[in-house]
Every structure is written in structure tokens, then in C-alpha cells.
């Protein structure tokens, strides 16, 4: 058998972990979730495991067990910090790992998001990314008071008005991403000339209006922030169905999917590749990572016992949009390598508990993958794009 291709590995950080009772474990730090030390410790641990990047979850409403509204619960972690600021706070204290905060496309300004992520790229010396996220929650609309959402049961995808609404939000997100990428390109890399002889600091021929005009917003540009170190920070998106697969294929460098098994993973990768070709991006590398929630233990029984304990604390069985893995790091390595054959190029693991399952990933899974020749043994140095084998994008406005 051919040696496995090297995997890419990301970890999704959120609160005390993805299990709603994770904050009650002895090593959880639930009173420190809003401190810099907590996030620094987590990201430093992920960097110790040589992971490609961490994502940081976010949202413009309170966390909820419901998809579309707050739940009024008091037994789970509620309250969180802005993810871009959290990533920036950690950036100077780390040196290799990618930092991929979540930012919403529905209520925010593309101009602000573009310059924030460009700045994250500067403060991290080329390690910034973005998880773009659409928000369909009516309560978040109320936080802004700027638009109206239709009254819909947005989980009912058979309803044509739901489909139309969701399509609209994702098309807006695609426009948003287009604006963001154009703004990153709106300065050519060598626009700053500092020409003492003519007194000119910049060459205005290398600064470009982006003149984006769309049905939802228009943005003139250029950005106020020079093109960031990576040219364009990494763009990523989570996708569960065809409309979001299409967004990912059109707009993202990494698409996270949530397949129940390897066959579905294969079919989804194929669908994304089709959308990618239709969008004229067939030649570009678009990574497809599977998301997995992981409950890890030294033995299968220990992992299961840990999960049982959490479910007992929560008083309910754990469910997720993503597949759930319960077992040992060795078993997880088997799973990751087996599913890779479906065409996946990496994984975004969601630790059920923090720091417990994160440590099991960095100190158990990673050495196991290294033994099998499937994971790096050192950071190569360079940018997040470089780590993922992505080129530095050519600037669309540059005339050579």
C-alpha cells in the first residue's frame, strides 16, 4: 500500500469544548473563558501539536442549543468574546500556527472585516484566516435593526421560501467574500515606494478602487490597509448542504463538511469539485476538510466512559451536525486515514472537552500520525497558506 498522503489538521476551539457539559469537568476553566490566558494556553497547546490552524467560533447572539433562537438555558456556557480580537490577542504569543476566527457576513461591513483580517495577518506575520459565517437567526437581526427577515421555519429545507431565503443569504456571503478579496488585492504589493526624490510615499497607479456593485451593497475601495503578508488570508467556510457547498467552492480555500460516513464524504467532495469547476476554479487548490467531534481516551472504554459521564451531567445524549468519534487516538488515526481515501485533504477536529480532548489530539493523535508518516514532525516556517500548500495569490489588479 502507498504511504498515506500527509494530512492537514485543524482544531475548532469553542468555550470549554463542544460538549455542553464540558465546563463541569475537573480540568475545565469555566470562569476563565473570557481571559487572554485561557486562549493563549489553548492555542499554544495546539501549536505544540504542530497543527495547521485553530478556528475560533463566534456569533452575534448568545450561544444556544436551538438552531434559530436563544434557549434561555443557564446550565451551559453562555457569553463569548469577539473571535478576531481573540485571535489577535494570541498572535504575538505564537509563531507558527494559523489563526482562523469566525466573522459573520450577514450583519457586518465587508470593509471592516477585510481590514481586520488583513491586520490579523500583519500581527501574526502571515498566519491569518477567516471562517465566514452566514447568520439566519432572527434574534441577531434584532441586534442590528437594519433589515427584516421573513417568518420562516428555517430548518425546513423542503419549503421553497426557506430555500429562497437561504440562497439569498449565501449569495450575499459570496458577494461579501468577493469584496473582501478585492480589497486585499486593492493595493499591489509594491505600492509603497517612499520616493524621496518626487516626495511620493505611494505609487497611486498601484492602488485600485474595487468598485464592487451588487444588489445588496456596493463598496468603492481601495482598502486603507496595505495588502497583507499572505496577499490574501485563508478563507474558509463550513457547509452542510448544496447551497453552502456552492459558496465554499466559489469563495473559500478550505471547505469544512460534516459527512456521516466515508461514502457521503466522497460524494460531497465530488459535488464540491463540480461547483468549483463551474465557478472557474478547477485549477485552484480548494481543501475539503471533514469536521469531527472527538471524545478521546486511552482505551475505547475510557473514551466511552468519559462521554457517558458528560451525557449524564447534561442529562441528554449528545448530538451534533458533525459525525462524532469516540475512542482512542490510535482509532481516530485509523478513521482519519481511512476517510482520506474519499478525497478529503484534512480534518477539523472539534474537541468535546477543553483542554482534555485538545491534549489528546496534540499528545496522542499527532504522535500516532507521525509514526505512520502521515503528519509533519516540524513546522516548515512560512505562512498559513504555505503550510496548506496554497500559493500566494497573484494580485488581480497588477499589470506586469
Amino acid at each position, binding site marked *: 500500500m502507498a504511504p498515506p498522503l500527509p494530512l492537514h489538521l485543524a482544531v475548532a476551539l469553542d468555550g470549554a469544548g463542544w460538549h455542553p*457539559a464540558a*465546563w*463541569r469537568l*475537573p480540568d*475545565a476553566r*469555566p*470562569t476563565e473563558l*473570557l*481571559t*487572554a490566558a485561557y486562549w493563549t494556553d489553548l492555542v499554544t497547546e495546539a501549536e505544540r501539536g504542530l497543527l495547521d490552524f485553530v478556528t475560533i467560533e463566534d*456569533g*452575534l*447572539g448568545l450561544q444556544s442549543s436551538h438552531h434559530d433562537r*436563544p434557549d*434561555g438555558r*443557564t*446550565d451551559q*456556557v*453562555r*457569553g463569548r*468574546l*469577539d473571535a*478576531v*480580537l*481573540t485571535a*489577535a*490577542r494570541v*498572535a*504575538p504569543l505564537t509563531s507558527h500556527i494559523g489563526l482562523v476566527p469566525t466573522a459573520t457576513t450577514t*450583519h*457586518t*461591513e465587508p*470593509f*471592516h472585516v477585510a*481590514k481586520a483580517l488583513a*491586520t*490579523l495577518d500583519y*500581527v501574526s506575520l502571515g498566519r491569518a484566516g477567516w471562517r465566514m459565517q452566514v447568520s439566519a437567526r432572527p*434574534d441577531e437581526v*434584532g*441586534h*442590528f*435593526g437594519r433589515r427584516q427577515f421573513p417568518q420562516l421555519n428555517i430548518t425546513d429545507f423542503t419549503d421553497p421560501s426557506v430555500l429562497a431565503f437561504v440562497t439569498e443569504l449565501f449569495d450575499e456571503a459570496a458577494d461579501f467574500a468577493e469584496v473582501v478579496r478585492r480589497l486585499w488585492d486593492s*493595493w499591489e504589493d509594491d505600492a509603497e515606494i*517612499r520616493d*524621496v526624490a518626487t*516626495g*511620493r*510615499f*505611494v505609487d*497611486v497607479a498601484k*492602488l485600485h478602487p474595487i468598485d464592487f456593485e451588487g444588489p*445588496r*451593497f*456596493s463598496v*468603492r475601495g*481601495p482598502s*486603507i*490597509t496595505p495588502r497583507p503578508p499572505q496577499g490574501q488570508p485563508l478563507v474558509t467556510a463550513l457547509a452542510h448542504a448544496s447551497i453552502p457547498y456552492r459558496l465554499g467552492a466559489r469563495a473559500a480555500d478550505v471547505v469544512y463538511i460534516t459527512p456521516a460516513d466515508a461514502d457521503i464524504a466522497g460524494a460531497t467532495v465530488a459535488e464540491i469539485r463540480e461547483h468549483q469547476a463551474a465557478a472557474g476554479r478547477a485549477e485552484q487548490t480548494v481543501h475539503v476538510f471533514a469536521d469531527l467531534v472527538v471524545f478521546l481516551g486511552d482505551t475505547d472504554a475510557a473514551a466511552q466512559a468519559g462521554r457517558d459521564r458528560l451525557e449524564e*451531567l447534561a442529562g441528554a445524549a449528545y448530538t451534533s451536525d458533525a459525525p462524532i468519534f469516540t475512542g482512542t487516538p490510535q482509532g481516530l488515526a485509523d478513521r482519519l486515514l481511512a476517510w482520506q481515501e474519499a478525497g478529503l485533504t484534512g480534518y477539523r477536529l472539534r474537541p468535546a472537552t477543553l483542554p482534555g480532548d485538545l491534549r489528546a489530539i496534540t499528545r496522542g493523535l499527532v504522535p500516532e500520525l507521525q509514526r505512520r508518516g502521515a503528519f509533519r514532525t516540524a513546522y516548515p516556517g512560512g505562512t498559513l497558506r504555505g503550510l496548506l500548500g496554497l500559493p500566494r495569490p497573484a494580485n488581480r489588479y497588477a499589470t506586469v
Partner: protein
Amino acid sequence: MTKPPRQIRLGAHFPGVNNTTVWSDPRAGSQIDFASFTHLARTAERAKFDFFFLAEGLRLREQRGRIHDLDVVGRPDTFTVLAALAAVTDRLGLTGTINSTFNEPYEVARQFASLDHLSAGRAGWNVVTSWDAFTGENFRRGGYLAAEDRYRRAEQFLRTSWQLFDSWHGDEVVADKDSGTFLADAGAGAFGHHDDQFDITGQFNVPRSPQGRPVILQAGDSDAGREFAAATADAIFSQHNTLEAGQAFVADVKGRLARYGRGHDELLVLPAATFALGDTDAEAQENALQIRRQQVSGQTALLFVEHVWNRDLSDHDPDGPLPEDDPVVGENTIARGRASVRQIRDPLAIARQWRELAEAKKLSLRELVIEVTGRQTFIGTAATVAAQLDDLVQQRAADGFILVPHVTPGGLDEFADKVVPLLQERGSFRADYETETLREHLGLPPRPTLEGELR
């Protein structure tokens, strides 16, 4: 026993996009690399400054329809840089400009509450109202706001933000592992704000931060701006840095406080100040002139005069006289996105004044601009400058200063090394930090929340 001297407050303005930042100097470094921000912030912290200050602009400035290319161009996002600076400093306040026109309160309040958590209570917000439709072309909202409405939005924006900051009281997160109670109150963060600017309801999702609310700075100088500061701000970033003008300004803005039930110590007046140092006073004068020449090239001088004349003067000679015709009166169309242009309220009067000055002193156009614009506030040896700064504070022409160095990022080094120790010897500046939060550093009283409790 003599009374201890009044304490000076000091902020460090990052020299970035600014018509005083000299980029042609051999010591000038990057205005965008994070290392530059780290350098200035660490220098300010080493010198025990109250805060670091970052300005903001949301569209590249233009003149005659062309991007202005003679000054430093390119700046980072305010929040992102401040959050990163929290990692490389411990006590320094981290303040930045955030516009109230092209943002929404829920988002800005989240960002400031996050910054305050991530910096353990060091966040400060310079609320500005820059409004023009030119800048609006970069935003969904566009340039919808008439100039007279912008302070109305700013004030409601700030009051709405306060409501969001105060929507958590600070005791809701109990995180009791045994009982399984994370939140003491399911309704934490609930808010509803309804006025002519904002009609929003919901639940704020950042629990109360160490300062509760960031320290508020205000930088407008119009009557509306001063009133806004008196009503809402903790500190006002002013342009009046001489004894008489400073005392008049202090009297004016502090005189407005009583109307809002506020005391004299609740609003600090912090003029922007520049400096030129030397080993002797004469050498400092020489350095000052040299800096002015670096700041105002012939091209820069011409463009500056265009702001007043409001027309293309590119065929004029900067080493020749001022234009003979009068300025074009009305809306300024020659320059866009420049704060200085907004300050020109009577161009004919300015032109008359300048002509008289040029004639009396036999100045060329460029020499005139060097003469009338942004001269260094403090010029002299470290001892001279320390005495000048201190006198202005002791004589109540200011509560402190926001220093604007002219070189990135090392422009504050000499001030930190030479002037600050002299202020410390005088007993008018702290020898070390004694408090944790920015609000405490500034000696500001705790602010009442909307519910009237002191927190």
C-alpha cells in the same frame, strides 16, 4: 507642607497616517508592520504613559480626484492592533478611534467589551463622527448622514453602547461545576433600545468586562462636539495647547459639565502635542525647523494651500507667492477625507490673514505654510520641555497631553528617556503604575451605570 503637584496624564499617538509624520527621515520605519506598534507601545509603557492612541481613517484621502500620495498612506484596523498590543504590554491603556457613523452599536460594544476583557481593563474609545458621503462609499450604509445629524447619531450610538455594556452586571457567570449552574440569570444581557437612531432589542453576548465600559475620548472641536464631550466623555482630545487657548478651552468644556450633573474631574482635557528636543534650546529650535521642512515639501505646501483656496493650484510655484485670486467659497470639493479640511470654516478670512503674514514676513507659499501649520508645541532641551508641559498642567490649561511624535516607530524614545524622568523628579508624573485599569490610571471616578449604581 506644600501641596503635591497636579498629576500629568500622557498618551502616545502612533505616528502613522498623518500630515506630521515624516517618512523621508532615515530613521523612519514601517507604519504597518506590527513591530512598529510594539515598539511605540513598549516605549510608552516603559515611560509609564497612561495610554497608547491609534487614529482611524476609513477611506484613502484624495485631492483633485486623485489619492493623496505625499503623506504616509496605509493603516491597520484599530481593534485588531489594540488586541494584539494587549499581548505585548501589561499596564498601558489601549485606546483607539472608532467611528460612530459607519458602525453599529451591537458590534462595536462587543468589540470594546472583548478588548477590555482581553487587556484586563485597559480599553479606551475615541468616538468620532466623521461623516462624509465620500467615506460612506466604502460601506453598506453609504453616506446618508447630514453633518448636523452626526452628533445626534454619535450620542445615541454611545448611549446605546452603554446600555449594552451595562446589560450584564458582572455577577451572572457563576460556573458552579457541582450544581451545574453556569449563569445565575437566563436573561443576562437583555436590552431594548428605541430612539430615532437605533431601534434594537435582544441579548448582548459579552459578559461585563473589567472596566464595565471603555474609557471614552472625544475629539471634535465644534460647539456640538464640545457639548457631546461634556455630556458623555471621560477625556477630550483637543487642539488647544498654549496657555491662553488651553485655559479658555478648559474653562469652556468644564463649564459645560454642571449641566450634566458632572464634576470638574470627570472630564480630562488632553491637547494633542508635538515636540522637538535638543541638547540646547538653540539646537532644539534648529531641529524643529528641520522637522518642519521635512513635513512640508513644496508639493505638500501647494496641496495644503489648495484646501483653503478650494481649487487646483498645481500650476503655482511653491517658492513663489500665494495665489492672487480669492478662495472659492462653498463646499470643499478639492480634498476629500481630510480632517483638516473640515476645520476650514472661513476660507476668505484665512486667505486674508495669510496674505498679510506672508507680506509682513516676506514668506514664499511654502514658507508661509511652514509658518502657519502645526508648529511643534514644545521645543527645547528636555528640561525646558518638561517645565513647559508641567506649567500648562499646573496652570490648568490642560490635564495632560497626547503626544504625537513625528517619526515611526522611534519618535517617542528620546522623550521617554529624557523628559519623563524630569517630570517624575518634579513629582507631577508617576514613577510607576500604581493601578491596573486605564480608568484608574487616569484618576477618573467610577461611572454610574444606567441604573445609577456605582461600579
